[in-house]
């Protein structure tokens, strides 16, 4: 048996090796920039040397090794690639709204590397996004962490293969509307949401136990016990209990956030990040103590009842209470200016430059479990970098160039009119999307088919 595992592991490794071999890695020397490292302060007119996709040297008067391009960034700012901990860019579908628990679903299966949203995000300095399942289900699908390597036609190329597994949970209005009000099954209330989660985890414990019992019995001589039925859904929940998956939980109200904190304490789960978390400020001490923090909107509120009692000071309150806090987009539009969204923490709560920038770089990196690889400008890290004209926290800032693994994927000077990789046959006559913003909100996409009774009004409720 063990041999088999090694063999499988070797094959898997080979598979990963092949897919990574196609990923381009660049070398570049960026000179004379104001380097905002995020974790190690600011370096005035300094250079950053990248080789084979990795930052290998920071300092002054560095010289480019033979064959390495030099970019003069005098008067410009260099910051780490921006990381969006909540996005649906690069996904063909978002919700599998067919059951309150769909943990077997994987967003990796629906990654679309040709989505224009990826290029537009790059143009806003975003190099990594967390492509999430939607919020229709209490336990949604497993998310994919993407690196914005624009230009590839192979989904595997833009999936960050070495990022840990994460899964979407959702509390409150969306799952209760979809399943309770829409289908007449639990959950219809926030009580039901808790019950669905507890039931799921307890079932997973039984499932784990059944397999453990079987493994023990199997080794007995003359054993005839058949194995339990395999369930990807329960196995995934068991993996959460074993600490192998980070939960990213869509949530708004303080009561439901507090509920999930109590649930994870009972099941001894440590890896939880709250998403949206509009009322997180009310339970900031609890979020700080028991979770991996919150990933929030800068200022969105009032678009639905559960975000009516919000405050734009949410991020600042969370930060000052010691909660790990990031600013996310959940929108193909907002993702284009996360630097500006982060800057709003200065209007609403007076955060420092370092704190504000951390909210779109190292903090989301920590929440995705990739902080050893990206999220700051440090020697040894992957060279995901953005050059800005103007300080990135200024409202007038304009991203100039964006690099992923040292490869330049966006350059404002070489930005052509049509950046599409691929044009669908159905788009030979290009559609015009008025109020394109509607397209931006995808958290509840793909659930319309289930709810004709709501006559489309349902779709107005976003996020």
């Amino acid at each position, binding site marked *: 048996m063990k041999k088999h595992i090694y063999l499988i592991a070797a094959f898997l490794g080979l598979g990963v090796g092949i897919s990574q071999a196609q990923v381009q890695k660049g070398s570049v020397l960026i000179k004379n920039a104001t380097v905002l490292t995020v974790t190690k302060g600011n370096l005035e007119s300094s250079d950053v040397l990248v080789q084979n996709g990795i930052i290998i040297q920071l300092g002054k008067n560095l010289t480019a090794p033979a064959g390495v391009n030099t970019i003069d960034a005098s008067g410009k700012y260099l910051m780490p690639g921006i990381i969006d901990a909540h996005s649906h860019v690069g996904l063909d579908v978002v919700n599998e709204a067919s059951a309150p628990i769909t943990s077997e679903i994987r967003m990796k299966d629906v990654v679309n590397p040709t989505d224009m949203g990826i290029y537009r995000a790059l143009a806003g300095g975003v190099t990594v996004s967390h492509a999430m399942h939607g919020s229709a289900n209490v336990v949604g699908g497993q998310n994919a962490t993407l690196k914005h390597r624009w230009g590839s036609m192979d989904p595997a190329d833009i999936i960050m293969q070495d990022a840990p597994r994460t899964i979407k949970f959702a509390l409150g209005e969306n799952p209760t509307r979809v399943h309770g009000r829409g289908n007449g099954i639990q959950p219809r209330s926030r009580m039901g949401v808790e019950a669905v989660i507890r039931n799921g985890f307890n079932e997973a414990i039984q499932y784990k136990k059944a397999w453990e019992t079987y493994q023990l019995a199997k080794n007995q001589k003359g054993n005839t016990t058949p194995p339990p039925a395999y369930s990807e859904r329960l196995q995934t929940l068991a993996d959460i209990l074993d600490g192998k998956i980070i939960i990213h939980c869509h949530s708004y109200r303080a009561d439901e956030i507090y509920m999930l904190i109590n649930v994870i304490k009972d099941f001894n789960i440590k890896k939880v990040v709250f998403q949206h978390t509009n009322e997180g400020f009310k339970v900031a001490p609890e979020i700080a103590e028991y979770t991996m923090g919150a990933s929030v909107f800068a200022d969105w509120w009032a678009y*639905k009842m559960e975000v009516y009692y919000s405050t734009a000071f949410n991020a600042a309150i969370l930060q000052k209470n010691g909660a790990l806090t990031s600013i996310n987009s959940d929108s193909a539009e*907002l993702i284009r*200016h996360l630097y500006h969204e982060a800057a709003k923490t200065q209007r609403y709560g007076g955060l420092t430059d370092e704190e504000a920038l951390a909210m779109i770089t190292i903090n989301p990196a920590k929440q995705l479990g990739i902080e050893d690889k990206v999220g700051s400008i440090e020697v040894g890290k992957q060279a995901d970098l953005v050059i800005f004209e103007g300080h990135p926290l200024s*409202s*007038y800032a304009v991203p100039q160039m964006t690099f992923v693994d040292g490869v330049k994927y966006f350059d404002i000077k070489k930005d052509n009119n049509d950046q599409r990789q691929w044009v669908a046959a159905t788009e030979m006559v290009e559609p*015009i*999307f008025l109020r394109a913003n509607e397209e931006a909100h995808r958290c509840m996409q793909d659930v319309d088919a289930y709810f004709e009774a709501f006559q489309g009004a349902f779709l107005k409720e976003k996020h």
Partner: protein
Amino acid sequence: MNRMYKTFCALLLALLPVVAMAQIDGEFVKPRNGKFLLKNATVVTVTKGTLANTSVLLENGKISKVGTNLSSDGAEVIDCTGLFIYPGIIDGGTRLGLVEVSSVPETVDYADVGNVTPNMQALTTVNPNSEAIGVTRVSGVTTVLTVPSGGLFPGTAALINLNGYTPDQMYGGFKAVAMIFPSSGRRGRFDRRSDEDVKKDGEKALKEANDIWDNAKSYLELKKSGATLAYFPEMEQLSKVISGELPLLIEVNAASDIQQAIKWVEGKNIKVIFTGVAEGWRVADEIAKAKIPVVTGPVQELPTRSSDRYDAPYANAGLLAKAGVKVALRTDDEENVRNLPFHAAFAAAYGLGKEEALKAVTINPAEIFGVADQYGSVEAGKRANLIVSTGDPFETRSQIMHVFIDGYRIPMSNRHIRLYQEFLERSPGLKAN
């Protein structure tokens, strides 16, 4: 610079509870009318340049004097040394006051049943106590056009100031009939009509618009000739557009629709303002030639076509202005109208320039709405709508320190700020009592 800024932030934080009024239990701070002398500021007048070490005297709801060495003469003096005075910022298109919570239909009042309802009055339904109004005005946005939407002629928009207890107290002196121009574009990802149906629907809608227009014309002619007419509130309201009493706000976005709308307006001899104009940059010269002013936005928006440059919506206002179109900006939002200054900053950075961007949210909308004698700049004789900030109000790091609307000093508080004050240091904290 950074250290200075940090010190400033610390100071501001320390002062915040004081700034937001040293409240005694049970006391509520209301907007306050009076005579105010804003002393020694840098005054960005918009129309008359930027004046250093200048004071502004407010009395009887008006800006009475702008100058140096102004005598306080009984006015409450507010020291503005090191601060900047700007005119109140104007949003040229919102749903502010018409909706409280977008997903709760009971609180959504900007659209009614029917395709032709120009007689529906946005002003009637403005809720002066909407939380969004308090949230918006401390950002420096003091005045907004609030616009109904929905059918072909959804209703009549109204300019409102963000202070007052009744819609009439808030009314800013400008109304216009809204029209959603028949569109050949899709309404978004969820619009799954075939190309053919989209085209057919557009043509049908345009024919309907023309029929309605002809009816309104007949109505006006009959009325002028003294005929006794039955009660047609829609025709009554539309006839005011035809007679020139009310302007027509035409919401139009796709390039071909804009061209169609220019043609539709030709020869009608009515006052027209285009709104939205998302693809205006494609036909900017034609809009300029037609001399139709534009209220465009949101600026922070996705391009309308996949093949468009990523920054097309950021650059749109700048390209329109460059072609000679008079441009004002809007958020087209309800709860986040407070972001208008940031939309303006993006327009500025992507081609409009800082000076023109400031005009696009002050004097330009005032001129387009015909109220430039009262709004849009810091000049003696105008309404006392102005803001005092620590710096450029388009920058997120600037803080808006004071807001005056119609001469009322607005308390710098709202629910967002009160929640901050309550929850920044929660008591009890983590552990139970």
